[in-house]
């Protein structure tokens, strides 16, 4: 699946998007964030406070309990500040 990052999450991770292949035991968004955090310092920094990270699966907002199976694109970003 494709992971995409925005705003300071993107800046901390150091890339706008990437292909990821989490293992089968990573089932929900919270698990995916934990798995990403363990991938390196830049990820650990981006996800150091998982509570503030917002997530969208295939362009729709989801909670951290949401299952990731079948997702094509998972986006991670800070609380929105548009408008």
């Amino acid at each position, binding site marked *: 699946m494709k992971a*995409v990052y*925005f*705003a*300071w999450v993107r800046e901390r991770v150091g890339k706008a998007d990437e292909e990821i292949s989490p293992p089968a035991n990573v089932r929900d968004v919270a698990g995916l964030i934990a798995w990403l955090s363990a991938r390196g310092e830049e990820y650990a920094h981006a996800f150091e406070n998982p509570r503030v990270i917002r997530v*969208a699966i295939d*362009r*729709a*907002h989801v909670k951290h309990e949401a299952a990731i199976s079948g997702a094509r694109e998972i*986006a991670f*970003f*800070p*609380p*929105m*500040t*548009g*408008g």
Partner: protein
Amino acid sequence: MTTRVRVGEEDFDCAAEVAAISKGRRDLGAIVTFTGLCRDEGGRLAALELEHYPGMAEEEIARVVAQARERWPLEAVTVIHRSGKIAPGAQIVLVVTASSHRAAAFAGADFLMDYLKTSAPFWKKEHPINGPATAWVAAKDDDDRAMERWRK
């Protein structure tokens, strides 16, 4: 029942958007527009930079418009949100609502702005006048509270 949603770098013309909605119609009683502008924050700001999630931004705005239409009898809704670098005094966002009745037009526009602020995937970064340092604007509790008004 027309809905127009646009996201992009180009500026917008509020009057042209209102004309597109109202021209030739004789059934509209009320048109409300909201224009959000870039403030210079007391002279401190050189520009705002707006990042967005292409694709999801348009889809999420359309979902918010659909919710507004379920709650109020809106004849037409237009939402335009700009991205990219925006100078103080320049326009960032436009919401136009048209209805037979003023209460629906006001409530619809107010609701749309509250929801856009907290659910449309846009992020503002400040470019201050002094130095290259930039900072992401933090989400405001005020905005979350404003949205809570509509949960009833």
